[in-house]
């Protein structure tokens, strides 16, 4: 009786997975429909004919959406770079050395992640207004990093804890100073963690909404998340267009998901220190 029971679980599993797959499927299906077919009743479960018109109209031929995608890419890359530059040494320092206040730091980094974004977005808007940094990439990047850096340190520290102390010791005996031991030994063996944090930082900035909404007032500076929010008002019921833009915004997440799963497994088997 064991096998039928396992298959029963599979059937229930498919039903539960459906709760998660159907909304995503519905986004893609709607984006591939002709405008008139979107309002068919009952709705066509499979779009026929399949058309990429919504992508052409609302993404490729929409300067607002293209500009939003460009803005999000710039902010995402800069946020990732700054987050890594700050969090890699910090996470290494907190893992490698018995610093005073290590636990206090770690607790503070955890607490910072609990702060609602609006609590920072409101004062940042006022501060940036005076510094003329509203509607600037710099402002958006600083805001995004304020929440990305604590998360990155929390994720990276365990990776550096697994770097064997003996390896770093050996390097310092051979004449490496602390910085080159960090750059030449700790970083190369922590690549899976670094990639994970880079992807998480980029995607966090890519989908970020509160800072983007509060700190940009000019359309040409808005990240794609805010542009997308504006579309649902402007387009009203043009759901195929809204779903096409949504799918494009979701695309990096799906790609990262496919790529990261494989990468992390690869990273686990790579094992830099052979004992």
């Amino acid at each position, binding site marked *: 009786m064991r096998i039928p029971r396992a298959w029963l679980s599979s059937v229930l599993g498919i039903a539960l997975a459906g709760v998660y797959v159907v909304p995503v499927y519905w986004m893609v299906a709607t984006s591939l429909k002709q405008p008139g077919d979107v309002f068919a009743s009952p709705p066509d479960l499979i779009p026929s004919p399949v058309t990429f018109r919504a992508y052409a109209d609302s993404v490729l031929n929409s300067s607002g959406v293209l500009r939003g995608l460009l803005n999000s890419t710039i902010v995402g890359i800069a946020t990732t770079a700054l987050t890594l530059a700050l969090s890699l*040494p910090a996470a290494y320092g907190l893992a490698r050395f018995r610093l005073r206040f290590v636990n206090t730091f770690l607790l503070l980094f955890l607490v910072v992640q609990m702060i609602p974004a609006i609590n920072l977005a409101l*004062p940042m808007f*006022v501060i940036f207004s005076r510094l003329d940094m509203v509607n600037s990439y710099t402002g958006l990047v600083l805001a995004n990093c*304020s929440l990305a*850096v604590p998360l990155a340190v929390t994720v990276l520290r365990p990776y550096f804890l697994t770097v064997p102390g003996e390896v770093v010791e050996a390097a310092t005996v051979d004449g490496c100073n602390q910085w080159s031991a960090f750059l030449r030994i700790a970083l190369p063996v922590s690549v899976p963690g670094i990639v994970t944090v880079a992807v998480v930082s980029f995607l966090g900035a890519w989908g970020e909404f509160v800072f983007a909404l509060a700190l940009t007032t000019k359309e040409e500076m808005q990240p794609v998340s805010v542009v997308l929010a504006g579309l649902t008002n402007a387009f009203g019921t043009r759901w195929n267009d809204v779903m096409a833009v949504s799918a494009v915004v979701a695309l990096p997440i799906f790609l990262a998901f496919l790529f990261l799963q494989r990468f992390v497994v690869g990273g686990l088997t790579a094992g830099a220190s052979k004992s």
Partner: protein
Amino acid sequence: MIARRSTGAATATGRPPNRRRVPLTAYLFVLPAVVFLAATVLYPLVFNIDLSFRDAGLRQIVTGDADFVGLDNYAEELANPDFRSALAISLIYTVLSVGVSFACGLGLAVFLNKTFPGRNLMRSLLLIAWVLPTVVSANIWRWILDGTYGLLNTVLGGLGLLDKGVFWLVEPTSALISVVTATVWSTAPFAMILLLAGLQSIPETLYEAARIDGAGPWQRFSRITVPMLRPVSMTVLLLLFVTTFKTFDTIYLMTRGGPGDATTILPIHAYLEAFQFFRFGTGAAATTVMLLIPLALSLFYFRSLRREEAS
């Protein structure tokens, strides 16, 4: 080019890491991040508290000469029916979402703890919902819940559960249920992952011993799984509460806090106060009060954690 420095000699003699000899460079590793967070987190938070004691409108924001008004903004907000309603709705929305999300997450974790064909695929599929940007999932929900052409009404109608379309986001109660559903959809997989890790850390021998002693499946769940899962459950509940309490995107995109103020939770209220009505002083007061709730909860959590470790 490896720069030669004498710090290596000091650490090479002792076992790493060594408390007595922490090289000064060690602090330099941490310094940039600490300075950065002091500037981008601590300073804005302090600035915000200062702002909450001032009469700051749009003009004062630019000129920077907002008058000090003491606790006026707090008095004004606490007497403001909009703020009180937002506080109440925040608590209802958060408690409902956390409760349902935890229950669903636990159910999924128990289910996925068994082996069956397709288990790994299913776990991956659930995680996609968790990583999907909320701006995307909120739009999908708006479309699915659409009163005239939405998929949900079609499915429920086809099953004979509805005889006419429900405008889910137009009625106050159903709008609240809708945003709770969208929230749970995104957060339940996160709860599932943590709870699944907790389940897998329970030794199989406990269940075997209970089975030998004649305990049924329900008894094994209530007498072994539930108590063994208590610590990780506390963590999951805290994290769910904190993340749900600060929700903004999902509600802003699905309902803009409406209809009326039926789904206006505190972050939405604070946003509207500052960025729509340009009352930055009262907005700052609202956000400061709002910060107290997750802060108090995490303090309580860390204290109970320490007490549990001590005993």
